[in-house]
């Protein structure tokens, strides 16, 4: 079990939080929508499966690159792939 940080890759405002604490997430699932300075809506996705341990931001929060959005308890189970 690893604790994975999900950080913002963008400068912008959290438009929508698509997950809740203690729910399972799957690789490349969109977790947050961030509206950048140009008004473009950008999804935050990570190559991590696991459980959301805590959310560190709310909708409307300003974020900068590197700011922690959530912590995820990562499962290092190799996902089935053929």
């Amino acid at each position: 079990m690893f604790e994975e940080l999900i950080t913002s890759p963008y400068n912008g405002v959290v438009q929508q939080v698509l997950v809740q604490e203690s729910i399972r997430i799957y690789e490349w699932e969109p977790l947050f929508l961030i509206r950048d300075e140009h008004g473009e809506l950008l999804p935050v996705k990570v190559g991590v499966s696991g459980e959301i341990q805590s959310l560190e931001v709310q909708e409307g929060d300003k974020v900068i690159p590197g700011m922690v959005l959530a912590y995820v308890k990562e499962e290092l189970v190799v996902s089935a792939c053929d």
Partner: protein
Amino acid sequence: MFTIDENKLNPLVSIAVEDQEEDNFIDISAIKEPFIFMSEKGKLISYVHLKSNRLAHKGKVTFQTLLSQSIPIEQVYHVNKIISLPVIFQVIGEPLTIINDETGSPSGYLKREELLAELFKQEEHGVNLFKTLLTSIPMGMFVVDREKKIINCNDAGLKMIKSTAEKVMNKPAESIFDRELIESVFATGKTILNQVQLTDEMGVLLDYCPISAQDQKIEGMLIVVQDIPTIEDMAMEIEDIKNLNTDLNAILSTIYDELLVVNSKGELIRYSENVISGFWDTDLKDMIGKSLLELEKKGMFSPSVTRLVMEKKKKVSVVQEARSGRKVLAVGNPVFNDKGEIDRIIIASRDITETSRLKDELKEMKKISEKYKKELDTFKNQDRTLKKLMYRSPKMEKIILQVKKIAEFSSTVLITGESGVGKEVIAQAIHQLGRRSDKPFLKLNCGAIPENLLESELFGYKKGAFTGADKEGKDGYFKMADQGVLFLDEIGEMPLHLQVKLLRVLQEQEVIPVGSTIAEKVDVQIIAATNKKLEQMVEQGTFREDLFYRLNVIPLHIPPLRERIEDISVLAFHFLQQLNEKYDKSFYLTPDAINVLEFYSWPGNVRELQNIIERLVVSADDQAIDAEFVSQFLSLGYDFKKARPIITRVVPLQEALEDVEEQLIVLAMKQYKTTTKAAKALGVSQSSVSRKYQKIVSSRKTENEASLY
């Protein structure tokens, strides 16, 4: 009870307020009494101390001035001439006391010292009174003489210092109390208050008061002791807190590598024992009182969590990177004051340089191993395809010829055919035989992937839409199959909205990853396959017509196995040989067994044949697998009604008829067990079945017996 002598009372000199104007002058120097009284309608309302600093030595003053100095009479005690003990404690708080007569009206007053002198004079009570006073006060008293020896004390005092009279009396005061303070009081004549004396036995608060004679000479001193048992507890608590602090520090340092406390201006005011080495260019000791915001401006690290907490006024977690390349996860927590302003910011940090590096490495390794796995798969596939493709029928020969041509030209191919006819094998053959054989062959089962994932699987994700090491995004199948072949299996299952996107890719030869607006060129040969009737789906509107025509550039229809009987034996031998090799066995199929296989309609086509052979091998006891054994595994009864037997070589008609008749009767008997039922299934009389079956059985017996010799 004490009685007061009436003759000692001072007279009440009073001025009636109603008789005076504010600016009337009154010559107070003429008044001998130190206190005069104000009255209204014959009642005393206040008094004035004429010997006070404000009034003493003044000749005449206005009535107004007098009034301003008057003190309400309510503050003064009125007592009868006979007074009880507790009252004494009340009256000594005030500079004067009014004495009432028997009727309750004031008859005179006494100054405090006069009252006390009166009381002490009453011999028999005097000593008692003094004692009562000393013992009633919940304070310890130690009287020290000019030689600084303790000459008197009360019980309370002894209790507080946990000692006895014998141990204390006539002993130097400094043996118990603070020598320096005692000396100081004697030298200066000043009172020293609230001195805490803390030893193992006691926790007390001390006042050192000088006793001075008329000529200001220090005659001795009074040491007043107050018990503060709580101070011992407090001391213990402080000790506990100290220990707790150490524990907390230890605990925190295992969770965080560094803790900082910053004030509202962003200045460092405290830091933990452990700090993250290599993050700070300077010694944190030198940073005390300096602003951490400045360091961000100087470029020592970025971003500053202090600044972010100050801006957002709430907890912020952020990854900071130092100039040195150290990466730190910093969590800043604001602490607010009563007004809701930030008072302090606590910053807990963890060094994640190593973790980040390991994670990057892990991701890199994952990528590499995925690549190897894919390469291995293609090797396996190549090997399989060419050995595996078995055929003898003219229909398949024609198809293989077509396959070779298609392979040369990279055209889009649509393979149709029932389930299990070998659509995938043909698709692989197209890849293997063509110029793209050293480039990837990727298969995507459009029916097996959830609809919401299909799009991203096909077209990939936008670059940069991800954090961490996945900033590269993810390539879709089209991108991964670049230069090679993409096999879209079960194309009939593709949802309509993706059909549009697929059509676009086929037309433009480029893909737009999900979340991107930039198209990327791809060069992929598309082979689609389906066991559905796409034309029908087009009519029903579940498959786009334009896409159908796009895919249907080269249609390849693989006929069902029952329409290419010549392939059955080669396939059967091929599968049997594979199993023999695998299990080191030597099973073989007798010619009549092959006949039965060729006779069957194979609704599941090649896949069914492959499965049946495996079941035969697993269940057979005999090396020779014959017709009888084989027919047990095929649901022939059902098929007789459906499929017609197909004769593939020319035989004398009679012989063929007899052969068919025999096979039919044997099968019917096997399936229905009684001649009556078999006759019904065959549509002939029971007697005819019975007769012919007898004949077959007996002739087989003789054959077997003959083969014994």
